[in-house]
C-alpha cells in the first residue's frame, strides 16, 4: 500500500462523520473507546445508551462484545480508534469466533495517536486493519475514505448482519474538547437504566 496524502484537508472529518452516523443509530447501543471516540460520541449528542469510557485502552471491542452477548436483540456499535484497535487486535478473533449478528465495529483511523500528541501510528504505512479483520475471519468489512460514503456506511453498521467492521480513514484534527461524565458508576447506572435493568 502506498502512503496516501491523508493529512490533506479533504479527508473525512471525525466529528461530522460520527454525528451523521449516530443520527441514524435507531435503538442501537454505543460503546465508544477511551479518548477521542468518547469525545466524538458525546459531541454528537449525549444519550444514556452511550457507554462512555475514559480508560482501559484496547477494551472497546471486548466491552461491546460483552454488551452484544447480553443484549442479543439490540444492535451494538463499538467506536474506536486505530491505536486502541491495534492494542486489542486479538479481540477481533474472539468476535469472529463468537459471531454476534448484532455487533458492529467502527474504527476511526487517523493513522496517529491523536490523544497524546499526534505521534505517528502503525496504520500510517502498511498496516491495514480491515485486512487484518478479514484474516481473523470477519468477512464483512469496509474501508471508506470519502465523506460521501457515509449514508451507505450507516446502513452497513446498523443494518447489515454482523459482525461487521468498518474503517473510516479520517483527517487528523484538533476538535474542541467535549468531555462527558467521567464517573464510571454514573455512566454505568445510566446505561443500565436505559436498558431497564434493576439496580443490583
Amino acid at each position, binding site marked *: 500500500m502506498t502512503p496516501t496524502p491523508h493529512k490533506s484537508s479533504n479527508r473525512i472529518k471525525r466529528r461530522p462523520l460520527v454525528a451523521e452516523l449516530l443520527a441514524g443509530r435507531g435503538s442501537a*447501543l454505543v*460503546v465508544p473507546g477511551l479518548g477521542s471516540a468518547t469525545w466524538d460520541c458525546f459531541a454528537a449528542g449525549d444519550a444514556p445508551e452511550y*457507554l462512555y*469510557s*475514559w*480508560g*482501559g*485502552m*484496547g*477494551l*472497546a*471491542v*471486548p*466491552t*461491546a*462484545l*460483552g*454488551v*452484544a*452477548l*447480553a*443484549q442479543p436483540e439490540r444492535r451494538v456499535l463499538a467506536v474506536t480508534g486505530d491505536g486502541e484497535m491495534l492494542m*486489542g487486535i*486479538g*479481540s477481533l*478473533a*474472539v468476535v469472529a*469466533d*463468537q459471531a454476534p449478528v448484532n455487533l458492529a465495529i467502527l474504527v476511526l483511523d487517523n493513522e496517529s495517536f491523536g490523544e497524546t500528541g499526534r505521534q505517528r501510528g502503525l496504520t500510517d504505512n502498511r498496516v491495514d486493519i480491515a485486512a487484518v479483520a478479514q484474516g481473523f475471519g470477519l468477512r464483512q468489512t469496509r474501508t471508506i475514505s470519502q465523506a460521501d460514503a457515509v449514508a451507505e456506511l450507516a446502513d452497513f453498521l446498523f443494518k447489515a448482519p454482523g459482525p461487521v467492521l468498518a474503517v473510516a480513514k479520517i483527517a487528523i484534527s484538533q476538535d474542541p474538547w467535549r468531555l462527558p461524565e467521567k464517573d*464510571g*458508576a454514573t*455512566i*454505568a447506572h445510566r*446505561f*443500565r437504566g436505559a*436498558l431497564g*435493568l434493576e439496580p*443490583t
Partner: protein
Amino acid sequence: MAARDIAVVCTIPDGGLTELLKLVEASKTVRLVTLSTEPEGIGIATGCWLAGKRAMIAMQSSGVGNCINALGLPAAYRAPCLMLVTMRGQWGEFNPWQVPMGQAVRPALEAVGVKCFAVDKAEEIGETFAAAADIAFMSRVSAAVLISQRVIGAKEFGRK
C-alpha cells in the same frame, strides 16, 4: 456457577481448568468465550454485566499479569468482575518461568483493588467460589478465587 447465574465464561485455558471447561462447553445455559488474551475477558465480563448478564473469567495465574490495567475498567464502572485463577509458580513448581508471576498474583491483584480468596483444599472450592461470586456481584467489586497447585497438583511433565 449455575447457582450464581453465570451466563458467560471467558477463558484462556489452563490444565487445571480442563474439567470445568468441558462442563461449560457442554452446557446449554453457559456460553464459553475463548479469548486471545486474558484482558479481553475483563472487557467482555464488564460489558455483559452492564447489559444485564453475569460473566466471569477463568485463567492461569500467568494471565493475571496481562489483566492489571484492564481491571481499572470494572473498578471505574463499579461493576463486578469475577475471576477463577489456577495457580502456577508456587506449590511444587518445576518451571522457573512460572515463578515470578505466580508469586506476584496476589499482591498485584490486591494493588488494583481485587479481593482475593485463596483455596488450598479441594473441599473448599465450592463455598469459596460462591462467596467470591456473592461479594463480586452483590457488592460490585472485583474478586478472584486463587486455586493452589496443592489442590490441582503440581505439573509433572512426565517427571516422577
